[in-house]
Each structure stands twice: as C-alpha cells, then as structure tokens.
C-alpha cells in the first residue's frame, strides 16, 4: 500500500476515533428530554430487541403527540437509540454513550444478562433505568437505587403459575397428577424449571422428568419421544419462541396430546405470531405470562395499531416497553425536572396506575414493582384469551384440553 493511501487510511481511523466521542443524533430541539432506548436490535436477540424498540418508540411518539411533559411546559421526549448487539459489554458501552449525550433516563435492555450490565453501568451515573422485560430476579436484588422493573420476574411468574395450576386442577376435579417440564438451558429457563421442580411435588404433582435443551435446538423429536414415553398429564414448557414453536409442531406431528400444555413464560404460547402461523398446534395451549389488561380499551386500541403495521405483532416486548416509557413519563411529570436524581426519586415513590397492565398502582420495593403479576391465557379458536384470574378473565379455561 503506497504512502498516499496509508495516510488516508490513518486519517479515516482518527476520524472514526473522534466520531466515537461525538454525541450522535444530537439534533436536539430546545427543551427536548432525552430518553435512552437500549435494546439488542442485532444479533441473536434481534427479533425481541426490535419489537421492544418499537413499543418504546410508539410510546414516545404518543406522549409527544398528546402534548409532551406538561409540567415542563410541554417538553417533548426524544429517543436516543442504542443497540446492545445482544452482548452485555456492548450494552454497557452504549450506556456510557447515552450518559454523555445527556439522557435523563434509560429504558431497556430486554435480556437479563444485558440488563445486569446496563443497570450497573447506569448506576455509576445515577441514570434512572427502567427495566422493560429482563425476568432474572438478580436484576432487582443488588441494591441498585437507579433500577426499576415494571413487570414481574420469573419467581413471581413461577409462583403464580404453580398456584394457578393447583386452582385449575381443583376446579376441573383434579384430572392432572403428573407433570413434565421442558426448559431452555439458560438463565430464565433453568431458574423457572428449578422453582417448579422444587415446589410442584409439595403441591401434589409428580414431576416425571425435567428435560433441559440447548439454544438453539435443531430437532425436538427425541424430546417428544420422551414426553410420549413418560406420558405426563401436563407438559410445562419454558423456552424461547423458536424452540417453543418447533416443540409444539413436533408434538402435533407425533400426535402427542397431554391433558394440558401449561407454559410458564412460554416463548410462543401467548404470541399472536405463533397463533397465526400454527393455528392447529397452538390451540388449547395455556400460558402464564406477561399480558395486558384485556378489559382496558387502550390496550386493544394499541393492538389495532400494531396489527395494522406490516409484519408486526402485539407481543409482550411491545406493550411492556410501551408501558415502561409511560411509567417514566409519569415520573418526569411528577418530578417536574429532567435531573436524574429527581427522576429516580419520583420513580421510587411512584404510585402510577394510568396504565393498561394488570398491576394496579405501582409500588417499587428495591426496584421491583410489587403489584406486577402475570396472567394466564389460553389459545382458543385461534385467539388468545385471558382465563385466570377472574378479575381479568375473558372466558372459562378449557382444562383438560379435549381439542
């Protein structure tokens, strides 16, 4: 390479180095309140990351359209987008960038491992960090004052699921006596399965087998074989979308029909995408998972808007992020300030209930919203309906499944 080209190359690299320090997207309007929107929009988690970003951006747009933050003279929210590239270290680096761009808060980062890193990095600058999904309970067990999780963690989900299973079973005359758990091998699957395997025997269920599988799993035929051989009354899956869908397809293919498929944070169970693409395999599936209040018109209105978008589905990533941004906006409204400390305090004593989630008014203890809870849904007639608890139920559960 001749000296001319080498010089140009060195100039470009220096420019890159300089650009890395410049705030990007800094076309700020006067009084804009910068909110970091940090998700894994590339890499393995891209699907969920992009849906999460969609939800957050829709909320920001809606709040701005409705007049912005009124207590600050109608100041508009401005999204500062970040890509965690499905890696914790990149998420942490993005937090540093957002810090220097002057964000007042951060919403994100979908995956638990990434959230652990981003909340820690944000804590060093006391940036309020609303956790949108991240179900690992360690996220809210470290004593970080800046971290606030709106939805429930997997412990609450597992506990609710177990109690609801007992309820369901009792209501139907106790047809189910045995369960088999199929879970993905990483944090949420293993954690959930451990809790279930520990507690279910105490509640009167025999745990026939706990089958752990990798991410990704290329073929479920063997697992389905084992399910067939064990012949449990209830199959409990806890995994991500792709594996859940493949598992259900294979169950259908092999004609394995337990009395119920009872998912806990089932990856595809309460997914409109799954119901649309695999109506046959999906019907009858129960799921204890994040869900919106089905009786709240705002949720159905939002769903209609998302359904109208090309290739988008109204998934938990969308409405949890939408709500997370709303939570933040409410806090900023009450704090009457864009200062991080003020927002942290406002979140800490938040009693916000102007949302469409079935959580009641917010109350954060150690960063966890106490009212957060999952609902139980069932896929019936190619649609997803809430079946428990009664306060939110849209229809009776069909248990055992006779489809």
């Amino acid at each position, binding site marked *: *390479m001749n*000296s001319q*080209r*080498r010089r140009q190359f060195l100039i470009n*690299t220096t420019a*890159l*180095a300089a*650009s*890395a*320090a410049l705030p*990007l*997207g800094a076309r700020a309007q006067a009084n804009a309140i910068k909110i970091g929107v940090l998700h894994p*929009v*590339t890499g393995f988690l*891209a699907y969920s*990351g*992009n849906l999460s970003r969609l939800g957050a951006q829709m909320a920001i747009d809606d709040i701005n359209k409705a007049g912005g933050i009124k207590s600050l003279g109608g100041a508009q929210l401005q999204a500062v*987008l*970040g*890509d965690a*590239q499905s*890696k*914790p*270290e*990149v998420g*942490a*680096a*993005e937090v*540093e*960038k957002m*810090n*220097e761009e002057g964000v007042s808060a951060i919403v994100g980062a979908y995956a638990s*491992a990434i959230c*652990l*890193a981003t909340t*820690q990095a944000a804590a*060093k*600058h006391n940036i309020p960090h609303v956790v949108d999904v991240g179900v690992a309970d*360690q996220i809210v067990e*470290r*004593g*970080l004052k800046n971290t606030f999780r709106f939805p429930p963690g997997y412990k609450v989900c597992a506990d609710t699921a177990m109690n609801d299973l007992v309820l369901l079973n009792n209501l139907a005359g106790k047809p189910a006596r045995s369960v088999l758990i199929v879970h*993905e*091998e*990483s*944090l949420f*699957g*293993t*954690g959930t399965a*451990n809790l279930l395997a520990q507690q279910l025997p105490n509640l009167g269920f025999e745990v026939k087998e706990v089958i*752990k599988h990798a991410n990704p799993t290329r073929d479920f035929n063997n697992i389905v074989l084992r399910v067939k051989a064990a012949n449990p009354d209830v199959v409990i899956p806890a995994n991500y979308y792709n594996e859940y869908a493949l598992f259900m397809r294979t169950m259908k293919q092999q004609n394995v029909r337990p009395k119920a498929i009872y998912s806990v944070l089932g990856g595809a169970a309460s997914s409109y995408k799954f119901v649309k693409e695999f109506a046959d395999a999906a019907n009858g599936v129960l799921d204890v998972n994040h869900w919106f209040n089905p009786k709240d018109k705002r949720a159905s209105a939002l769903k209609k808007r998302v359904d109208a978008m090309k290739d988008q589905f109204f998934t938990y990533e969308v409405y949890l992020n939408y709500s997370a941004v709303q939570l933040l906006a409410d806090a900023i409204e009450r704090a009457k300030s864009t200062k991080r400390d003020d927002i942290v305090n406002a979140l800490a004593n938040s009693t916000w209930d102007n949302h469409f989630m079935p959580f009641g008014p917010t109350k954060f203890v150690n960063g966890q919203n106490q009212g957060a809870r999952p609902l139980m849904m069932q896929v019936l007639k190619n649609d997803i309906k809430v079946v428990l608890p009664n306060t939110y139920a849209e229809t009776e559960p069909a248990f055992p499944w006779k489809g």
Partner: protein
Amino acid sequence: MRQLAAIAVFAVAAAVLPLFITSGVVLNTAIMILYTALLGLAWNILAGFGGQFSFGHAVFFGTGAYAAAVLQAKLGWNAWATLPAALLLGAAVGAFIGALSFRYGLRGSYFALVTLAFAEVFRILANNVTFTGAGVGIMVKLKSGAENFQFATKTGYLYVILVFVVAGLVLCWWLKNSRYGAWLQAVRDNEESAAALGVNVFRVKLGAIALSGALMAAGGVFYAQYFQYIDPGLAYGPGVSIEALLGPIVGGLGTLWGPVLGAVLLQLLGEGTRGLFANAPGVSLMLYGALLVLMVTFMPSGVLGVLRRRA
C-alpha cells in the same frame, strides 16, 4: 531494550489518560481496547510466536472467569486472591489440552479445531454442573472497594487492565528476546528442523500454551469483575475465541505490538460504526464486516506489516 522502553512509554501514556480525560465513553473504550489487547496478546503467544492457531481460546478465558466468580460466590474468597488461582487454572487447562494435542501430533487446522471442541465441551459442562450455576450463570456480588477488585470509577479498572496488558507485553518481549522464545519461534518456523537442532519441541509448545492459557485466564478474571456476571455462553462461547484472534491478525501476527494495534483498530471500528444508521439495524455491522474484509485484503500482514514495508 528499545522495545522495553516503548512498553514503558505506552504504560505511562495510558496511565496518565484518566488525568486528562473524564469522558466515560473514552475511558470505557480505552478499557475495552486494553481488554481486547490482553486477549489478543494471550492468543498471539501461542499462535504468533508458537505457530499454533487456536479457535477455542475461550476455554482459558472461561476458566479464569469462572474461577473468579465461583471462588468468590461459593467459597467467599477475596476477589484479588482469585487471580493467582485463575492464572494457575488457565495454565493447567492449557497444559492439559497441550499435552493431549501435541502428544498426538496435532498441528495446523487440526489443532485449531480441537481447541474449538474443548471450548465447547467446557461450555456444555459449565451449563450442566451446579457449582458453576449451570445455565443460570454466576453473579459477582456488588461490593465496592479497591480491596474487592471493584472500583467506583473507571480509573481503577483502567489501571488494573493496564497492568495486565503491560505484564503481557513484557512477557512477549521476553519471548522475543530469550532463549526459550528463540526455541519457540524455531518450532513455529520449522518443527522438524528445530527438533533436529535439539529443541524439546513438545516441552516448548507445552510452555507456550500454558503461558497463553494463564494470560487469557487473567482476561477472564477481569471480565468477571468488570461486568459482574458470567454464564456458560459468555465464558466459553465462540464470541470470545473470535475476539481473541481478530486483533493479532489485523495488527500483525507474531509481533509485539500487533495485538495492541489490532485491538485499537477494531474497537474504534466497532464503536465508530455502531452509532451509524441507528434506525436500520444491521447496516452498521455490515459496514464493520465489509471493512474487516477490506482491512485483510489491503493489509495481509496486518498493520505492522504495512508499517514495516514502509520502513
């Protein structure tokens, strides 16, 4: 001697950085550059100086990371105390893999692939064994304080990783200028001739992989302390193995400064492209990949190769 002086200058320059720069972004980037450089230095010992390419260097990294995490979380050790343990374990794993592989004469791509396989074996084991936390992973408890290898500001971490990197550079300097290093490079250049000259090829290679493993394990310890959470994928996954080999190849294989230069280049490239096209996920990484290909095309011997040709 001149090289030692250069290392000293580098160390001082990096050390005074926090005095002038307060930007979290720049400091974090500096830390990540040094961290990537450390991984590259470790990999380069075996590949650049020893001529044995490894695709599974994560096996040493993960061992160090888990050593730090498990010893603290399950046995209550002090964070600093885990460092020598991690180094020893890294070297031991290196010696184990090396003993098997070199005993059976694995070289070239066969050796590279076997390291990949070992990394996967360790990953699967870590995923299925309770004392590593299995799939749930392990958190390093938040316990701020220099005595706990956790710092309130970035500066502390910068100094620690700088010390690791300088140690690595000095080690590589020693490899370039010592008799052992001469043996190692002779083995790299032509194993049969080296053997004919009386070099104990097996022991020399074993030493290299042990050193490489130990240094890589140090990187793992740092990761565990800086990010405070590891799981089998983060510790033993192919991501780390790839990260370790990118820098030295781009910077200059088998050179002292190659891994550092490569780390600087790649980190800046990554940071520089990441913010672009924020509204179109994927485009920035396409740019990164394309630039990587271009870099290799126009700098086949790495950055140092280019600089050398000019000199």
